[in-house]
């Protein structure tokens, strides 16, 4: 499958500004309560790290962060042709009764988040689980919505939203690609 560029959705400036706004919204909604930021592998991880640093700057307190790999909880393991690489899951000790923010780059069918919720239930009972995503591109297959959204766009099924982050891709940008 080859992808060709349809259009650029966000520039470096937009990416950083949007992350900053998302962070503000999270702080505001949680009214000063400490939150735990959990990045979903892979691009949710650097997103969560950056948001944690922003929160540290704004409030003077560094929030707890963690990483979550959802591949062991996928509902399509026996159906996908390729086998996903399992990356590290590393949650803070004792997240019982905490306010947890799941962080991911793109919200699409909702199945990744379904798997993430299953995974989190194996670690205890959090006070709340909230969801922050960079892009909500529609086409949900499950009753799942995000609490915090960087940008909501309408997309076609044959499009792919590519979030690029410095830590992994060497640039900050978001592109909408089309399957050729």
């Amino acid at each position, binding site marked *: 499958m080859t992808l060709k560029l349809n259009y650029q959705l966000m520039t470096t400036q937009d990416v950083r500004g949007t992350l900053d706004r998302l962070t503000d919204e999270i702080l505001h909604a949680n009214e000063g309560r400490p939150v735990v930021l959990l990045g979903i592998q892979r691009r949710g991880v650097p997103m969560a790290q950056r948001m944690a640093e922003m929160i540290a700057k704004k409030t003077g307190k560094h929030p707890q962060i963690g990483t979550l790999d959802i591949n062991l909880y996928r509902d399509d393991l026996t159906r996908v042709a390729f086998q996903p*690489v399992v990356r590290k899951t590393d949650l803070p000790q004792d997240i019982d009764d905490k306010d947890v923010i799941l962080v991911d780059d793109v919200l699409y069918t909702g199945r990744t988040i379904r798997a993430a919720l299953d995974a989190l239930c194996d670690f205890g009972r959090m006070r709340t689980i909230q969801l922050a995503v960079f892009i909500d591109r529609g086409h949900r297959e499950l009753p799942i919505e995000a609490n915090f959204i960087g940008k909501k766009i309408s997309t076609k099924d044959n499009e792919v939203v590519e979030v690029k982050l410095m830590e992994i891709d060497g640039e900050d940008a978001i592109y909408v690609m089309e399957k050729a």
Partner: protein
Amino acid sequence: MLKRKDLLGIQELGCDEILEILDTAESLQEISSRPIKKVPTLRGKTVINLFFEASTRTRTSFEIAGKRLSADVVNISASTSSVSKGETLIDTARTLDAMAADCVVIRHSSSGAPATIARMTKAAVINGGDGAHEHPTQALLDALTIRQRKGHLDGLKVAIVGDITHSRVARSNIHLLTKFGSHVWLCSAPTLMPVGVEQMICDNSQFLHTTNSIDEAVADADVIMMLRVQFERMSESFFPSVREYFHYFGLSRARVHLAKQDVIIMHPGPMNRGVEISSEVADGPYSVIFDQVSAGVAVRMSVLYLMLGA
């Protein structure tokens, strides 16, 4: 994703496949430290442990690994199965296949038994140790333990000391470590060293050395692997007495000091304390013998996931 139906030995594996197993094992290690030590990944898969030889560690380790991934694990030991009524190995295998097993882990005293079963079944076959041939998951868990302590698998000096003749663990480790460019020093009494072992077919035989002197083997070693003297496989006398064996080939504290400052001492278990290893070394600060056991669960989870996951 392992591009093979079965895991029969290390010899036929590429370095990329070995690294994929180790990397996945490291990701899965975290599951064993959770309050709920279980993920739903292999729900509905059936793993059968078919053991024709005594085993605590390997069988339990596979059973725990399967259960932590939510597979259904069934244990069969030869003494309680129809094998004792005269059923052939192949008929046993076909029977398990007819019950729609997804994976069969087999241990057998004959080299090549897992390969025979693999040809006869649709199920994935994992070699849990066959005769004096291979014990691939043991070498993989040893490699994981070494990599987590040393940070890498290349350029190390690894001494493997003891009953080389009867040891499938030694063979699998020789294949794995020489593939990555570590020097393997085999040491044992001449009676317990296979004739012509230097010509053993491994990818990089220039990395394989032999000696009858344990002092030479362990000098400046990064890793010392002690092997159990396998009395149950010995129909004749290979050495005059256990005391003499320990005197010449046992790992004492004095000998540990010949190795590198940060040496690690390994043993695949079960240990014969006072035969190949002294208690003070087995329980001492350099010993990683129980880390190996933990790594074993992670490596077996990794292998089951990679073979049955998709």
